[in-house]
């Protein structure tokens, strides 16, 4: 069970900023994205632009295997524009 955080455009598309999702303990980053899109189909349009931050480390969407623990923070990170 992880906390998913939504920011910027992803928060607008999902309609919320934060929720708890149940996901397998081991999952690739791409599979995790697909789980989230099942819940919020409107996010599909930004698939090519986002990365994750898992426990505050950036992770590209792909084959990278994530080992998640209950309470971990997973954030959807659209292209950044600070500064």
């Amino acid at each position: 069970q992880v906390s998913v955080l939504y920011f910027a455009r992803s928060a607008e598309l999902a309609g919320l900023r934060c929720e708890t999702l149940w996901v397998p303990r081991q999952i690739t980053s791409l599979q995790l994205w697909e789980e989230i899109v099942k819940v919020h189909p409107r996010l599909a349009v930004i698939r090519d632009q986002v990365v994750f931050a898992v426990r505050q480390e950036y992770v590209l969407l792909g084959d990278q295997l994530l080992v998640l623990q209950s309470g971990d923070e997973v954030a959807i990170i659209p292209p950044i524009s600070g500064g």
Partner: protein
Amino acid sequence: MDESEDVPKDFINLKSEKLSVDEVSELVISPYCGAVSLFIGTTRNNFEGKKVIHLEYEAYTSMAETEIKKICRDVRQKWPSVKHIAVHHRLGVVPITEASVIIAVSSPHRAESLEAVMYCINTLKASVPIWKKEIYEDEYSWKENKECFWANSEK
């Protein structure tokens, strides 16, 4: 003279109040430093012919602070003589001409602080989870830094 009393410090602040150049410069001033270099990022009133009404910033605050701390650590590795570093970024609504970000670095001589300030702003734009929304008269747009390493280059 005991320079060990003036321990190098990082001052990182993400806040919604108006930023102050005086406040940020004063944070990094040190009697052992002959140079303070500053960068101020301000809000332009136009983009591609559209009038910008104001900007809005949001952040993944805890991670943004961690990423800025990493930038400070990298600065100290690359320029060991750097003394203090301050990075203040505004969140929420930022009116035109007001500052969104102020970065100040002090060092004994000017080359290091000038280079370190440039490194800080360039790396912040590439790696810190902060987002800017430009509000126009009829619409808005989430901006994307070209430095962002995962964004599509075509727009």
